[in-house]
């Protein structure tokens, strides 16, 4: 039965990938569609459905990658995305991706789909890992027991993909009856009764009656809602009381019974189709050995700090010399092109547009490609290794003091790359309260867009302690996030603690391909941003620096100068009251890299480029205060947009935008004025 299939051409198929987290859905998606979605080794990499295309023979397959889910229960936002699609979406076949090395739990989801009447192909993925563990699966037997086709694959190596496509096309019109599990005489009797009543009430024919009856007996809230919608509240009530009455009579929780029977069925299926090595005492595996160290009560947090420190050290020590080369290149290119243009008799205005505007502005941002590249390389390795969920585990100690739990830490780590996916990653948190707090503090995680600002300032004004200064900013961000989470926890919400259950996937050695895909995607996004928003803003600033007509370029009398002077008094108590700094911060809300881009344009007129201008205009203390401001103040519009769409509320968006500005101002004020009093760095 295809649930909500719509008419389409016979050579077009809609195929959905569904399964447990960490079963390799996204890897499979990439293999099938040739796309390059990011794959990670932690639950919750995919939080929204993604679509791609695959071609096989004459067929065009639209492939949909769904977020991982353990069941159709759907406790968090990402799982709801998957559940809603599977229960009401438009598709021909579901490829249920199963981790072969972990069959019993994966099959729990499979049989839920089969019971619902979903047309699915059971894809035994990660077959190599199962082989390594000595697990032998009799595909034919399994297929017979489940009543659905079974295919074996190793998506990470492209094994079995052709066969899978072949099977998908062949089974495009699966019409097998839905799976029937025997729930025992009492429940079965009740199922028959409920089905009869549903028929009598003309319940929607789009849904398998038996499945609906089982769900109702399980008191599934979604099923109850559906029933009320379809047959009306009063008739729904009759069915509910019928179930309650039988349950009372049986003196048993039918929903528990149903779950037990499901697992009994799975155990039977496994006993008949799977051979496991007989050794009682499985040898302690590598993952457990690593976990014994990294999740240690005393060493866990220090090891995590060390890992983070290592990432930043790597980003800077390897990146720094590269930055130097690119900087020299842009400077040389700027003066060479400038003289070339002047020599060719091009008007000074156009020459200034190219050298001051484009090279000075966009170039000053592009210089930081090596850092961005390296940072994402390191984060990619971190994500693919499986350490992410361990970090979340060890941070639970800190997070639980804030009324959150360890899982809330994952969006924070994601935020180090970019706050937009960081905010989206909060979908994996099942309590609304945890989600809102995590979203509110996510912008405090210093994203890669702020990195160029740190690097140029730290490198120029703290040449001997650059990486320490930058690391201190990241640390300050975390500390502020912790403090703010504590405050929000106290003032905004009370109670409603959520349940902490999180899978710790086995460690995997990051593949070169996986890490590079991740990195290219991010660097590509950075370049795209540089070419679009950063470029446009820089051009705008260059124009403002040249208006009104005839004004001296980038002087206080230019429009940007006048605008900056208007805003500057706000920042004067923080040590950077110049119009250049003020306008860079304002435009930085469009994209944080623009802070550097703006300074590049407005200081381009000076001798010795941006670095010399910074030394002349900022004391070390003022620079540090400025960096604190950049770290903490109002997030960029893309992040605010993500907050708006995730919270569905202007209130939270505005609260985030404004509380961060106040927090930034106060912190920078304390740092600058405190430093002045103590006479540090003036």
């Amino acid at each position, binding site marked *: 039965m295809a649930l909500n299939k719509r008419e389409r051409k016979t050579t077009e198929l809609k195929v959905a990938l569904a399964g447990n987290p960490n079963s390799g859905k996204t890897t499979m998606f990439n293999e099938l569609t040739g796309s390059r979605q990011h794959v990670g080794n932690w639950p919750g990499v995919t939080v929204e459905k993604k679509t791609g295309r695959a071609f096989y023979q004459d067929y065009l397959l639209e492939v949909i990658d769904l977020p991982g889910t353990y069941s159709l229960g759907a406790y968090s936002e990402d799982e709801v995305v998957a559940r809603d699609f599977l229960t009401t979406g438009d598709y021909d076949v579901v490829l249920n991706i199963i981790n072969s090395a972990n069959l*019993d739990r994966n099959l729990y989801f499979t049989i839920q789909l089969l019971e619902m009447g979903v047309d699915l192909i059971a894809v035994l993925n990660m077959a190599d890992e199962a082989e390594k563990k000595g697990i032998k699966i009799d595909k034919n037997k399994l297929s017979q027991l489940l009543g659905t086709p079974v295919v074996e694959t190793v998506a990470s190596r492209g094994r079995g993909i052709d066969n899978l496509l072949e099977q998908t096309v062949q089974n495009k019109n699966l019409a097998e009856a839905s799976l029937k599990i025997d729930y025992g005489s009492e429940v079965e009797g009740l199922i028959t009764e409920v089905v009869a009543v549903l028929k009598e009430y003309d319940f929607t024919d789009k849904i398998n009656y038996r499945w609906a009856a089982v769900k109702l007996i399980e008191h599934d809230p979604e099923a109850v809602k559906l029933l009320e919608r379809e047959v009306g509240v009063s008739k729904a009530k009759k069915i509910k009381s019928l179930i309650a009455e039988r349950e009372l009579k049986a003196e048993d929780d039918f929903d528990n019974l149903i779950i037990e029977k499901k697992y009994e069925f799975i155990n039977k299926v496994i006993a008949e189709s799977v051979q496991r090595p007989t050794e009682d005492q499985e040898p302690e595996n590598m993952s457990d050995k690593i976990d014994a160290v990294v999740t240690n*009560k005393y060493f866990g947090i220090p090891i995590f700090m060390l890992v983070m420190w290592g990432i930043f050290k790597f980003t800077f020590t390897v990146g720094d010399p590269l930055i130097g080369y690119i900087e020299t290149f842009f400077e040389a290119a700027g003066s060479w092109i400038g003289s070339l243009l002047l020599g060719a008799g091009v008007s000074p205005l156009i020459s200034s547009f190219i050298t001051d505007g484009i090279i000075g502005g966009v170039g000053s941002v592009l210089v930081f490609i090596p850092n961005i590249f390296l940072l994402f390389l390191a984060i990619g390795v971190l994500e693919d290794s499986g350490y992410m969920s361990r970090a979340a585990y060890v941070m639970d100690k800190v997070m639980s003091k804030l009324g959150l739990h360890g899982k809330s830490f994952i969006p924070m780590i994601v935020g180090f790359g970019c706050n937009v996916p960081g905010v989206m990653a909060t979908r994996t948190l099942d309590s609304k309260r945890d989600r809102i707090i995590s979203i509110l503090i996510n912008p405090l995680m210093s994203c890669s867009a702020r990195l160029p600002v740190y690097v140029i300032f730290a490198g120029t004004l703290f040449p001997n302690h650059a990486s320490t200064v930058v690391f201190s900013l990241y640390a300050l961000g975390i500390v502020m996030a912790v403090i703010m989470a504590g405050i929000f926890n106290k003032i905004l919400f009370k109670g409603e603690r959520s349940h902490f259950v999180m899978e710790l996937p086995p460690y995997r050695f990051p593949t070169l391909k996986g890490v590079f895909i991740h990195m290219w995607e991010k660097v590509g996004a950075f370049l795209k941003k540089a070419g679009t928003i950063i470029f446009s803003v820089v051009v705008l600033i260059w124009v403002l620096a040249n208006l009104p007509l005839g004004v001296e370029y980038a002087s206080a009398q230019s429009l940007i100068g006048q605008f900056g002077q208007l805003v500057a008094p706000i920042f004067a108590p923080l040590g950077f009251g110049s119009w250049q700094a003020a306008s860079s911060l304002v435009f930085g809300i469009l994209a944080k890299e623009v802070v550097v881009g703006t300074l590049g344009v407005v200081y381009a007129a000076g001798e010795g480029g941006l670095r010399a201008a910074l030394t002349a205009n900022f004391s070390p203390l003022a620079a540090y205060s400025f960096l604190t401001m950049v770290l903490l103040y109002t997030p960029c519009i893309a992040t605010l947009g993500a907050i708006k769409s995730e919270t569905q509320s202007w209130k939270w968006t505005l609260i985030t935008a404004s509380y961060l500005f106040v927090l930034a101002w106060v912190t920078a004020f304390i740092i600058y004025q405190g430093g002045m009093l103590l006479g540090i760095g003036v």
Partner: protein
Amino acid sequence: MPLAMLRQGETACIKEIIGGRTARGKLTDMGFVSGKTVKIHRSSGGPLIVGLGDNRIALGRGMAHKVIVNTGGCEN
């Protein structure tokens, strides 16, 4: 007894899952069902790390109180 009260390294057999609908649902989804053997890989104040077959699952203390076990392995 609740799973939360086992010591590190101990093995037990799950007897039943108690608690509210959501908590129970989440636990059973992850494979915590009666008759399964669980092993405590870590119990040192914070959340537990529990071995359930080949899976390793971090389990908050509150959740671990909802898993009722018999000490010693399961029969068979």
